[in-house]
Structure formats: structure tokens, C-alpha cells
């Protein structure tokens, strides 16, 4: 339990927030039409029988997403110390030596910048793993191993002051990192009509 810095060690705290948020979105969703009014299915067969059943291997090969509850996180683990070296070699040329400098997306919060960063704007730590694995580095997307992604995730969370330098990030610990910005996020409140929002 010492893995994470105490201030952010709130197991399930994040999940509870997520649950409330999801519920409100569900309720919002219920006001929408849930059937395809445009679809005239009269005279259609129950199924057209098109397509082939997806095999487990096919699904596993493509199903790379990671949810906030950690579903989809692979085996492996990473630490900030090891992540620092990978960052310097593969990320710093675009994001700056310490993640503050740019020129492309600023990743690390600093006292002198108002830039939106992982530390001050990203609501879920799992998104970091998901995005780095699927899309980074920009010039060699999808080239990082799961271990490298864990290391980088640990490094970037540590650089933003969210976990200790010795924290181990893995499928159990990463979903428990509570991001400071998470409490700021609210679902869309615009509904049409005269009100400007």
C-alpha cells in the first residue's frame, strides 16, 4: 500500500466517481431514442447471416483498449527510473527534455506554464497507457513493448508529481492512481433550445 503517494492513494475512490458519472450519462442516454426509427425492418429476416464469427484470437489481436477500471491492462510493470531513459530516447525530441518544453504536446505541469498536461488535465491514468501504446511515438506508432509503456507511464506520472519515483505501475496499481483533474469533469449540459451553454 506504500506504492502510491498517500495523497492519491484512494482505492476505489476513483471508481466511485466514475460510477456516478457513468450513471448520470446513462440517465442522460435514456432520454434519447433507443431504437432506430429510421430503420424499416419489416420483411427483414431475423439475421442476414453476413460476416463470420470472430475468433478469440482475432478479438485478442485487436482489442488493445484499456478502461479506467483497468480492464484491458496487460501483464508487466514499469517504474519511473526506467521510464526516464526510454523517454529521453524516444519522446524528448517532440515533448522536451522534461516534458515541459514541447514543442509538441506539453506532458508535465510546471509552475511557469498554464499548459494542459497529464498532471493538471488528464482525468484517468489508464488513458495514458492506452494512448501511448496505441499511438506513440508519432514516428513509430505501436512500436513500444508493454513493459516500455508501463515504464513511460510511471515516468510521466512521477514527473507530474502523482506517484513516487519508486512506484511500480502495473495492472493493479495504475487504475488506482487518482488524477487531480478527474473531479473537474462533467458531462455535456447543452440540450438545445434557447439556452446558451
Amino acid at each position, binding site marked *: 500500500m506504500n506504492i502510491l503517494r498517500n495523497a492519491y492513494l484512494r482505492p476505489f475512490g476513483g471508481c466511485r466517481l466514475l460510477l456516478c458519472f457513468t450513471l448520470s450519462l446513462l440517465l442522460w*442516454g435514456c432520454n434519447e431514442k433507443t*431504437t*432506430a426509427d429510421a*430503420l424499416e425492418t419489416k420483411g427483414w429476416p431475423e439475421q*442476414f447471416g453476413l460476416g463470420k464469427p470472430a475468433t478469440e484470437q482475432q478479438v485478442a489481436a*485487436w482489442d488493445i483498449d484499456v478502461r479506467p477500471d483497468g480492464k484491458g491492462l496487460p501483464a508487466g510493470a514499469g517504474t519511473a527510473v526506467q521510464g526516464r531513459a526510454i523517454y529521453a530516447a524516444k519522446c524528448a525530441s517532440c515533448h522536451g527534455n522534461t516534458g515541459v518544453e514541447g514543442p509538441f504536446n506539453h506532458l508535465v505541469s510546471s509552475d511557469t506554464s498554464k499548459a494542459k498536461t497529464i498532471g493538471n488535465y488528464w482525468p484517468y491514468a489508464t*488513458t495514458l497507457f492506452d494512448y501511448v501504446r496505441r499511438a506513440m511515438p508519432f514516428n513509430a506508432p505501436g512500436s513500444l513493448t508493454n513493459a516500455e509503456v508501463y515504464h513511460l507511464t510511471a515516468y510521466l506520472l512521477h514527473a507530474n508529481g502523482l506517484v513516487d519515483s519508486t512506484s511500480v505501475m502495473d495492472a493493479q496499481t495504475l487504475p488506482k492512481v487518482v488524477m487531480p483533474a478527474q473531479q*473537474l469533469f462533467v458531462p455535456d449540459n447543452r440540450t438545445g433550445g434557447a439556452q446558451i451553454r
Partner: protein
Amino acid sequence: MNDVSKNQPNKGRKLSRRHLLGGMAATAAAVLLKQSSGQVIQAGLAKDSLLLQDPTKVLGPLPSQLGDRSPFEQPVRKPSDTSSRTPLQDLYGTITPSDLHFERHHGGIPAIDPHKYELLIHGMVERPTVFTLADLKRFPSFSRIFFLECSGNFRSGKEQLTPQDICGLTSQSEWTGVMLATLFREVGIHPKASWFLAEGSDAAVMTRSIPVSKGMEDGMIAFAQNGEALRPAQGYPARLVLPGWEGNTNVKWIRRIEVSDQPFMTREETSKYTEQVGDKVRQFSFVMDARSVITFPTFPAVVHKGWIEIRGIAWSGRGKIARVEVSTDAGKSWQPAQLQEPVLDKAHTAFRYLWQWDGKATEIMSRAVDDTGYTQPTLEQLKEARGANMGGYHVNSIISWQIKGDGSVLLRPENIR
């Protein structure tokens, strides 16, 4: 035409069609020059050029396999590293030519072999299934005209901006494909499913979470645009389209749909495509609110005293445009513009207003009202509603043009902050 000419269009003709066409195009392209003023002139035109001849006295090019634009018409997108903008001021009607549709990519344009293309639908479904492109095309199909607009579609801050610069990240097409509801029905979507992940096969493997309710209502997997297969930049061979919703959710090159009971909180729906509203961050703000833009007269046009038809487009992601109002006195009074029928749901709608300009400096502007009763706001109203840090997403404010006494037209610049 006989069979020979059909299969071998240049064979057996004294005057090669290819030669004639090639010669024509090359001559014309070489002699048209754009001056710094923007005016196209015929410079250095060879005496024997077809363009200088009386067209009634010379045989023109014969039919060909592919058509070209007139060399006098050169509408182009304006590209940056991440997007390219539709030249709204150069277009007529409401359909955007496919090669001028705006682009916004997150990892470039992937090259996908349509014969190897597959769409996987899995997660909370009874029958996880892989569909080929041929499979998708065998389902009952559906066509619909609607706009696509990037939610980061606002620029201002200086006078010398065109509609393309300001809001060229909106375009309109007739999309054809298979309704998502048809596919969800085929795979047996779980009754408690509420969200699905849409994933592209570009270098960003871009993902967005979408409520199942929207997918069931009018979501579509489109494989065609304006009568032909999708352009590569628009998602070839298949993409998600969600009428009225921010462009980023219309995932291109779609390869996978995972049905779930919660959003996935991907990068594009958390750190991007969210906006600060007061001290909160608004997320899943999918719908594009009503908006309009005058496309003539706008910078860099110069107008003359007398009758001017003010033209533009209006659209709303929530429904139909109910009316567009135009002001020619800097917003003091508003007059109804004429809407071009048909006025379609969630679609660019052309409007026009005939105005007699007295030659005095003024400002002209338009505002859209949709059928939910929403009126396009001013930037000040948006700032008031969202706060000083509202950022650049979903900025749909009224755009105002200064008409100077000398007839020059300039944007009235505004600043988000």
C-alpha cells in the same frame, strides 16, 4: 461508339484524344497565372493556344474517362500539419466536392486494401462478428445528406481571414452505407449495452466512445460519399458517421467496434475535445450547435454600391435550420434571409439576402436559429456562459464582416481571450 473506341479510346483516330486533351490541359495550366491580387490572368499565352481562338472555330476535346475542373477554377483546401480547410467562399449550393472536404487526421492517411478490410464488432453482443467490405455492402443500405464539422472550427483575431480560414473545418456530403442499427441487430446487441468504442486503423488507432443510443438512432458505417467510394482522406474504405456530432467522433478507417456498458475514456475524449466551462471541464459534448457564416461578400472580395446578394450557409447538429437572420447595420436590426429548399435535418442550408448597399461603411452578419429554438450566440454570450477559459472547441458565434467605404470587405476580428 463502337467497341474498339470504348476499349481503346485512342486507337484508330487520326487526332489522338489523349494528345488533344493533354495538349489542352498543359497549355491552359501553363499560361494561367495568379497575381498577388488573387486575380487569374492569361500571361504569356502562345498565339496558337486554343484559349485564344474562337471556340466556335476549333474542335474541342472529345469525351474522356475522367473529368477535370476548368483551368480557370482552382478551389483548393488550405492545409496545415494536422488539418486542411474547405474553401467555403469558392463553393456553390451545399454539397462539398469530395476532393475539397476538410481533413483532420491524427496519424496521417492509412493505405487500406479494400479486399483485406475487416470490421470487427464484439463486446456486449451475442455474436461477435467480422464483416468484410463486401459483407457491409450486402446489407440494406441507406443514403443521407448531412454536414461534418470539426468541433475545433473557429479562428479569428485578424481582419484578413476568409470563411475558409475562420471555419473551413465543415463540409457536407451525401453519405451511403449501412446503418449501425442494422449491424447491431445482426450481431445481437445486449439490451444493457450503453456505449461502444469506435476504433480506426490509422497510425493513431484513434478511438472514441459513443452512446449506443446515437448509434441506434442514426449512426452509419459509410462506404460511399457523393456517389463514389469514400476518398482515402475521408476514411476509405469505411468510416463511422454520426449526423450532427463533432467530426472527431466520426471515426475514419473504422476497424473495430467494442460494445460496452461504460465509456472507455480515451485520450481524444478526455485530454482533447473537452472544454473548460466555468471551473469544470465539459466532456462528451457531442452535438454541434447551430451556426451560420456569410460566404459572400467576405474577405478578400471588393464590392460596389448597389445590389448585393449576401450569401452563406447555416447548419445545426440538433435538427433543421428554422431561419437565418441577416443584419446589414452591425447588429442593430435583423432581417429574415431566404432559405434554399430543401432544408434538411443536420445539414448545411444555403441562405441569401438581397441588399442594396448605399456605399457607406457598415458591418454585415448572419445568425442561425434551429428548430429547437436555439439562436446562434455572439462570442460575448458564449464567454459569459462558459467563462474566460472556454478554449476553442464548440465556438459557434456570430461572424461579422466590415464593409469599408471603398468596398473592401474585412473580418471584424474577435478574441476568445
